[in-house]
């Protein structure tokens, strides 16, 4: 087994872990955290795909690597948005 495959399998397991957490945790903040675990798994699967595509003197296929990079930033923005919403909801709760 190559290390790319190994990390791909790890990504698959992380997808399972993150999805389970997103579905069964009730605290919204922990749900967001699990969304990030899940995202990490998805990116790792993509990273395995990139590593398998090594060639032409590159250690990995640069196209999926660039896509993962973009995806990480988008995922961070999504996390920030979700966190802001949870905080806003909590302060609305507070005033009631």
């Amino acid at each position, binding site marked *: 087994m190559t290390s790319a495959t190994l990390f791909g399998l790890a*990504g698959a397991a*992380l997808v399972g872990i993150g999805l389970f957490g997103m579905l069964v945790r009730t605290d919204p903040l922990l749900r967001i955290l699990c969304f990030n675990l899940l995202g990490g798994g998805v990116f790792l699967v993509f990273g395995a795909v990139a590593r398998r595509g090594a060639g032409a003197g590159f250690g990995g296929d640069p196209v999926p690597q660039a896509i993962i990079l973009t995806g990480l930033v988008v995922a961070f*923005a999504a996390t*920030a*948005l979700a966190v802001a919403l949870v905080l806003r909801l909590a302060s609305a709760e507070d005033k009631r």
Partner: protein
Amino acid sequence: MIADLLLVAAMLIVALASMLARQAFTAVALFIAYGLLLTLAWVRLAAVDVAMTEAAIGAGLSGVLLLGAVRRLATQASPPPEQPPGPAMTLLIALGCAALAAALGAVVLLLPNPAPSLAAPVAANLPATDLGNPVTGVLMSFRALDTLLESAVVLLAVVCVWALTPEGGWGGVPGAAQPVQRDGPLALLARALPPLGIVIAMHILWVGADAPGGKFQAAAILAAMWLLPWMAGLVTPPPIAARWLRWTIAIGPVVFIAIGLAGAVIEGAFLAYPPGWAKPLILIIEFILTASIAVALALLVIGTPDTAQRR
């Protein structure tokens, strides 16, 4: 190989523990550890650019963002907990997730060999961009549209976070007030680290054209260097009504689109660079974009304006 196995085992255990943690703080502490381990995993996958982004954004900024939320929620009444799924339902969900993970694992093993790859066309066309780093080449030339749209997404996220301002807080200072810390490790780091961090960020940005690095990593570091003194209560963010603040976060995407449209007029295709001009134009875009994204990322961590801080 042993190291890889060890790394994977550590990653899975930390993720599982984070998902199951009872306390929010524990979960986030474990999540930060997860980000650090992922960084090492990216190095092992020969994706150094991604490793840098993961360290800066995945572990660093995301972790601090979640920690800040834990801190603020601790002082506020927690919303009534939703009903967790019953044991039978939980078991069903667990089986479903396990099945998905197993299917995904099987599929990873079944991916075609040799793997299809765009490494060769990237290598063949990279000289046309005058860049040495293939990932930067993809981000700034071959798939520059994605990068452009992503910078717009980050800007939009800031608008969204601001749009959540409670009644009476509009135009005020973003984020919760931070207690002033005159001494202690935080105050020390808040004074000592930023100059160092800014130099490192510039270095990462500059080498990005030819070696791993680039605007997102540099922007994340710069954002962290602004957040440190903010957390120590040493600086106050500008109010969101400030025109210059809004221009700072918008100027990056605006310049990017303007250069793209200029390419459409001169070269006949949106985001096409005239021959010989590719590298200087890309560097200009990267510099301005770094500034915009750094401020936007920091604003995303700082959060929504708070009525309590209206002054």
